[in-house]
C-alpha cells in the first residue's frame, strides 16, 4: 500500500467542520452532487492511477 493511512489531515476538526458546514443547507441530492465534484477535484490533485485505484478499493471494502 502506498496510500497514506496514518493521520495526515491538518486540523482534523476544522476540516470536518468545513466539510459538513458546506452541506448544512443542502438537500441530499445537492450534497451528493457536491461530494462527487469534490472527489473529482481531489482525484485530480492526487493524479496517480495506482493511488486512486487503491483508494477506490479501500472505500469500497
Amino acid at each position, binding site marked *: 500500500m502506498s496510500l497514506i493511512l496514518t493521520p495526515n489531515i491538518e486540523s482534523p476538526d476544522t476540516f470536518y467542520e468545513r466539510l459538513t458546514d458546506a452541506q448544512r443547507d443542502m438537500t441530499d441530492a445537492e450534497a*451528493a*452532487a457536491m461530494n*462527487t*465534484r469534490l*472527489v*473529482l*477535484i481531489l482525484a*485530480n490533485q492526487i493524479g496517480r492511477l495506482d493511488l486512486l485505484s487503491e483508494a477506490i478499493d479501500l472505500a469500497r471494502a
Partner: protein
Amino acid sequence: MLATYDFPEFAYVPSPEQVTGQAVRHPVVVVGAGPIGLTAALDFAARGLRVVVLDDNNTVSVGSRAVCYAKRPLEIWDRLGVARPMLDKGIEWKLGRVFMRDQQVYTFDLLPEDGHKIPAFINLQQYYLEEYMVDACTANPLIDLRWKHKVVSLKRHDDHVALAVETPDGIFEMQADWLIACDGANSDIRRMVGAAFTGQFFQDRFLIADIVMKADFPTERWFWFDPDFHRGQSALLHKQSDDVWRLDFQLGWDADPEEEKKPENIIPRVRAMLGEEVEFELEWASVYQFACRRVDRFRHGRVLFAGDAAHQVSPFGARGANTGVQDIDNLGWKLAAVIRGDAPEALLDTYHDERAFAADDNLLNSTRSTDFITPKNGASRTYRDAVLHLSRTCEFARPLVNSGRLSTPTPYVASPLNTPDADTWQGRMTPGTCAADAPIAEDGRPGWLLDRLGEGFTLLVLGLDPAPVEAGAFTPLQLVEGRDFTDAQGLVAERYDRGQGAVYLIRPDQHVAARWRRFDPDAIRAAIARATTGDAA
C-alpha cells in the same frame, strides 16, 4: 428514394451451378456485401485469390449508418485502389466540440500530424463507400459478386463448408474451402455454427436522422450534453457530403421508437436544434438501441468471422466499419498463405488472437463512451454530471468528458507473431504496431512510404547495408534508404527511430513484425518464420 442519392439496383444473375445442378467447390466464399465483405473480396483478389461474394440483397446500405472513416481503413482501401473516390467525395474534418447546455466545455483536434498521404478522418455516407467498392469488385476478374443469394443453412466439414443458398430461382448447394462470414451484426452464419455473441445492450434509444440543408455550420463534430434544445439528453451534429447532415438525439429508454420516427415528431426536434429559420429536408430517420458484443472465436474451423458479424460496437467513436476493415487487412494475407500451402492452418488462429484483442479494445472504448452518455445508475449519472459541471470552469475535468473516443488502430502488442525487441528503441513503432506513413522521394519525385511497401513482407532498411535474405514464398522485398528512396524530410528517421541504423520487418498487412539495429539475415529469417507459422516455438 433520397433527394440526394439514387440507390443502385444490381442485377441478379443466376449462379452457373444452380443452372446446371452441379455443386462447385470454391476456394473462398464471402457472405455479405457490406463494407467488410466488399473489402474482403478486394483484399483477397489483390492477393491472387478467386472470391465469390454472396449477398441476400441487391443494393448498397440503406438508411443512416456509418459516416466517419479513419486514416487506417482509408490506407487499407488505398492499398486496394479504392480510396480515391472516397477521398474525393468525402469531407475532411478534424475538430470536435463538446457542449454542456449551451456552453462549450471541451474541444478536441485530431491534430493530424503532417506528412501522411491519408487524412485523419473523412465523413461519407455508407452507401457511397459501398458503391465505390462494388464498382471495383465488378471490374475485378477474380471477384464474382452474386446478388440475391441468401445463405439459408450450412454444414461444416473438416476440409470445406457446404452451403444452401436461396435465390429467386430456389435453393441450391455450394461448397467453399473457406467461408468468410461478413453478414453483419445479426449474422445468420454465427447462428448456424452456434457461435456465442455476448456483451451488453444499453438501455437507451437514439433517434438518428439525416437531413439535407444548406447551412454554414462548420465541418466539425458538435456534441451536446443536456442542450437547451433537448433537455436532459445528448445530441450530435456532423456533416456528410452532398449537404447531408447527421443528427443524433438521445431519447431515453422509455421513448416509443414508432412515434419518434414520425416526421411530425422529428421536425420540431430539428428546428429546436438548428433554429426556426433553417430550411431543411428530412432524408432518413431511424431509432436505434446500441449494443457492444463480440463473437467467442473469430475462427470456427473453416468459417472465419469479420466485421459486425464478429463484433458490434455503439457508434460513439466510429469504430464499427473502421475496425472491421482492419479485420480483413489482418486476415487476407494469412488466408492466402494458408490456401497456397505456404503457411500452416494454425496461422489463421492468430487472426483470432490479434483481432479479438483489437475488438476487445474497441468494445472497451465504445462501452466507456456509451456509459458516459447513458450512465448505468444514479451514482454514475451524478459523476457524469459532476464532470460536465466542473468542465465548464476547470480544465482538469475536460479529459474525463467522453462523447466518443475516435477509432485508432490497436497495436497487437501481445501477438505471438511478433519478435520482441532485443535492442534499444524510442518512439511508437514497436512490434505489432501498424507502420507509420512518411513522405519520401524517389529519383527526386515525391512519394509515400506506405505506397512502396510490398504485397508480401518488406524489409525497410535505414542506414545499414542490406544483404540477400532468402525465405521461400515469404522472401521480403527490400526497401533500402539511399538506394530505393531518400528520406527527404527526415520523417522516416524520426518515425522509425533510425538512429545509427535500423531494419524493420514489415508484414503484408503493414504491421511491424520485428526490428533490429544490425542487418542479420539469420535473425530476419527466424522472425519471418515466427510471423508466418502462428507458432511462437
